[in-house]
């Protein structure tokens, strides 16, 4: 009985922290319409800020808490809302995900730089280890009671705020209908700002409680967002009461599972995936969302290269690799190989997100599956392993997509990340896979072609990349490609034209995942030694973000993304330890740059180059013929045609 009480209190205490974090997530999401992926990261930075004042500057706990919770955290929330969130189209799931993910990654970069993990840091317990009460013979620490008390206070506070204050009632109004509130003269932007301040403060409180009860760890605190999400999904990210219930269930499940079950064998890593399993159960039980018309963001055309153009670019790329490879040595050569292999796998992001408009955050997990499948079935480097990896990947992709297909892009994206976490703990960490030791993978062996040397392997990988990206572009130009783009531009329109959206998404996920596992197999064959650390699910966030940075609708962006992720560590060794979070900064701040150039780096640059070339041609044509008239078809046709439109419209109605 005593054990039961102790476990229950421990579970409630953990659930209380989840509840505080999750309620912050719900408040920001419902009022601003943007899911804050950086919620955990804000809590994490605030926990470090609290450490800074409490320990480093020797402030008293109440003073440090007041400063962080009432000033710094709300300030950061407001800054993010006014600087970024406000400019987002809330119906553009891709953009809102990418931007808040970018904030998360950038904040991690800031934390790694400001508080290098080479130094151990701890937050003291608020009341010391001996402060406890005895219930039924079990010692209950004050810390646990504090968390529970604060969660209850949060619940009461939010209830009073939303039901008894004018501004709280107005915020609930925004949740019901943003446009209507705007028409009634309330400013949704103002209320959204307030919701981000409250959300950040609650995130900070949860972060500080987690850090003082458990540990002050950048990654773990940042990923609190996933557990909060699981709790909040019970209330579909809207209902605070159900969110609290979800949080308590999660906390209790954690306590009872660790207290009563002997977790051995393959279940040894069950504990961290409890929230994920909980999430999957909820996702399966939720009813399908209905399609809504009139919400899709307006997308713009991006240049799609012709078959000839893509083959020409591919040939140039292969030639470049062949010329450059003799000049590359040692680790640089190794990392460039790795980068191209990652680029092959990252083509799945172009297909899935760039063309299909779906966001999956589980690329590295599929790379890992691909590498493992290749090691299991590609005996002696047999290409059969590549084929198996691609085929199993297709089946896997369809299965992973199924539970969330009926839901919105946001839930789908988050559930893929949760799947990555599940796969990491329950698969990659298993001793039979790569949990006990490194996984040795043979280099691919093709008849008549030795890829044993890294230079030859690089050229081969580049050929594969060139062919596969030409293939991806061919898909884009095909009927299926147009249909994909149609679903991205307007799901409601595509469905009312007769398209089975679920089937289309399953096919899309299958094909994209197949590319990822295929790329993973080549990654494994290139690296020859991989560990479970190589397939940490958090890494998936980086590759998706970096492909977005370079231009998610452009295959070249996959290569650029893969190469930059592989090469960044080489640069990092040459810069001071304080600034080694280069990958975080590059990805985080790079992705924030998308606010200005949503199309990404590669299309922006190639557009610039094309217009320069056109200008040059015009200039030459001008000097040749003595006139300044532009040659037909070289300038952007849309602008030139606009004056005709008024006329043409009358003609249109003639028919």
């Amino acid at each position, binding site marked *: 009985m005593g054990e039961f009480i102790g476990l229950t209190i421990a579970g409630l205490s953990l659930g209380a922290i989840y509840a505080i974090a999750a309620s912050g997530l719900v408040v920001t999401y419902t009022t601003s319409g943007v899911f804050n992926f950086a919620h955990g990261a804000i809590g994490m930075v605030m926990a470090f800020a609290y450490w800074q004042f409490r320990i480093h500057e020797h402030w008293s706990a109440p003073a440090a808490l007041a400063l962080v919770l009432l000033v710094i955290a709300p300030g950061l929330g407001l800054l993010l809302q006014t600087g970024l969130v406000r400019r987002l189209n809330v119906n553009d799931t891709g953009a809102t995900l990418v931007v808040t993910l970018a904030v998360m990654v950038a904040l991690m970069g800031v934390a790694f730089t400001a508080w290098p993990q080479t130094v151990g840091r701890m937050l003291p317990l608020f009341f010391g280890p001996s402060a406890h009460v005895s219930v039924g013979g079990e010692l209950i620490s004050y810390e646990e009671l504090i968390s529970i008390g604060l969660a209850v206070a949060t619940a009461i506070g939010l209830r009073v705020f939303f039901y008894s204050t004018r501004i709280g009632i107005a915020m609930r109004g925004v949740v019901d209908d943003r446009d*209507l509130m705007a028409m009634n003269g309330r400013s949704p932007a103002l209320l959204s700002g307030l919701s981000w301040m409250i959300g950040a403060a609650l995130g900070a409180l949860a972060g500080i409680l987690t850090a003082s009860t458990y540990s002050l760890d950048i990654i773990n605190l940042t990923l609190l967002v996933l557990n909060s999400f699981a709790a909040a999904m019970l209330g579909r990210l809207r209902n605070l009461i159900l969110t609290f219930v979800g949080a308590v269930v999660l906390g209790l499940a954690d306590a009872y599972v660790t207290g009563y079950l002997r977790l051995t064998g393959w279940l040894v890593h069950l504990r961290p995936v409890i929230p994920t399993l909980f999430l999957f159960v909820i996702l399966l039980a939720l009813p399908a969302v209905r399609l809504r018309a*009139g919400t899709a963001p*307006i997308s713009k055309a991006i240049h799609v290269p012709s078959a000839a153009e893509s083959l020409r670019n591919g040939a140039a790329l292969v030639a470049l690799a062949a010329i450059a490879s003799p000049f590359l040595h040692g680790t640089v050569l190794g990392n460039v190989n790795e980068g191209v292999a990652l680029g092959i796998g990252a083509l799945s992001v172009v297909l899935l997100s760039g063309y299909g408009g779906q966001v999956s955050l589980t690329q590295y997990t599929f790379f890992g599956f691909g590498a493992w499948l290749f090691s299991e079935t590609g005996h002696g480097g047999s290409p059969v392993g590549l084929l198996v990896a691609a085929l199993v990947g297709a089946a896997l992709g369809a299965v992973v997509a199924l539970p969330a297909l009926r839901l919105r892009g946001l839930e789908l994206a988050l559930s893929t990340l949760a799947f990555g976490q599940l796969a990491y703990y329950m698969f990659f960490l298993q001793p039979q896979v790569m949990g006990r030791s490194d996984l040795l993978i043979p280099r691919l062996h093709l008849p008549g072609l030795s890829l044993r040397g890294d230079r030859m392997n690089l050229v081969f990988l580049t050929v594969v990349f060139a062919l596969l990206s030409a293939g991806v572009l061919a898909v884009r130009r095909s009927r299926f490609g*147009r249909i994909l783009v149609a679903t991205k*531009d*307007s799901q409601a329109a595509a469905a009312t*034209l007769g398209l089975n*959206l679920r089937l289309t998404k399953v096919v899309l996920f299958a094909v994209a995942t197949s590319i990822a596992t295929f790329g993973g197999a080549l990654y494994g064959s290139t690296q020859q030694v991989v560990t479970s650390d190589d397939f940490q699910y958090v890494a998936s966030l980086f590759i998706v973000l970096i492909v977005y940075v370079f231009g998610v609708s452009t295959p070249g962006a996959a290569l650029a993304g893969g190469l930059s992720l592989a090469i960044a560590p080489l640069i990092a060794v040459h810069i001071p330890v304080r600034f080694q979070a280069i990958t975080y900064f590059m990805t985080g701040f790079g992705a924030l740059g998308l606010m200005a150039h949503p199309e990404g780096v590669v299309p922006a640059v190639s557009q610039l180059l094309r217009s320069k070339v056109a200008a040059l041609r015009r200039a030459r044509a001008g000097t040749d013929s003595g006139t300044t008239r532009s040659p037909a078809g070289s300038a952007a046709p849309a602008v030139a045609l606009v004056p005709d439109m008024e006329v043409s419209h009358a003609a249109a109605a003639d028919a």
Partner: protein
Amino acid sequence: MPLLQTREVSVRFGGVMALDGVSIAAEAGMVTGLIGPNGAGKTTMFNVITGLQVPTAGRVLIDGQDVTGMPVHRRARLGVARTFQRLELFGSMTVRENVQTAADISDLWARDGTAARARTDEILERVGLRHLADVPAHTLPTGLARLTELARALATRPRLLLLDEPGSGLDTTESEQFARLLSSLAAEGRAILLVEHDMDLVMAACSWIEVLDFGVHIASGTPEEIRANASVQEAYLGGPVGAREGDRSRAGAGASDAGAGDRHRRSGARAHGADARHADAHPEAEVRS
């Protein structure tokens, strides 16, 4: 038997009855008008017919077949197509690709795209968009964007065509020409259900009109009957419909919407595409207000 029948369809949003036991019908071969002030539930009715909105009660029949629980895409394959009040164009495609994608979707299992391409060209010619075929859809002004949505809907070879305010953004002459286009499309055997605030267009194109007000079906009849109907005049803010025709004002609260459309049309083509979907009232707001 009418091609489309709704039987006692009700939709409740929270405490508001967006539609309250509405039974309407649309016959093949003619244009049926569905009119009413803002908030009457017209767009909600379109959503129910196409399957985007599951009704709280009631049934939808296409050609006598009950489709109430049928998924959106399967209704489309039965021959239901629509345009949207707030544009849902495929913005990253050209006008031709918009239409051709729709043709592709309806010929999904065809060996190749030849038939779809031929149909695309034919439709672009028919609605008069051929010379704009290669223009990116997101640059189109409202009127042309709506025409593109019509062309796209036609590409699925619909038997029932639901048009949600296709006339906003058209001037007087264009709207007369548009009415003739609708009549000729109907004459080929299609049933057309037209939601429109432009009364001239409704009166010119429709041979039968159904009137909704606050989710309730208040009248149906020929244009002449509707014009003379007292409860219809009452619904339109008390003003007799006929008296307001001279100044081309749109019926009731719709006047401001359509006016906004006209303003947009004059204010530079590029801005049009971007603003088009914000020009009209939020369909849900329409229901709740």
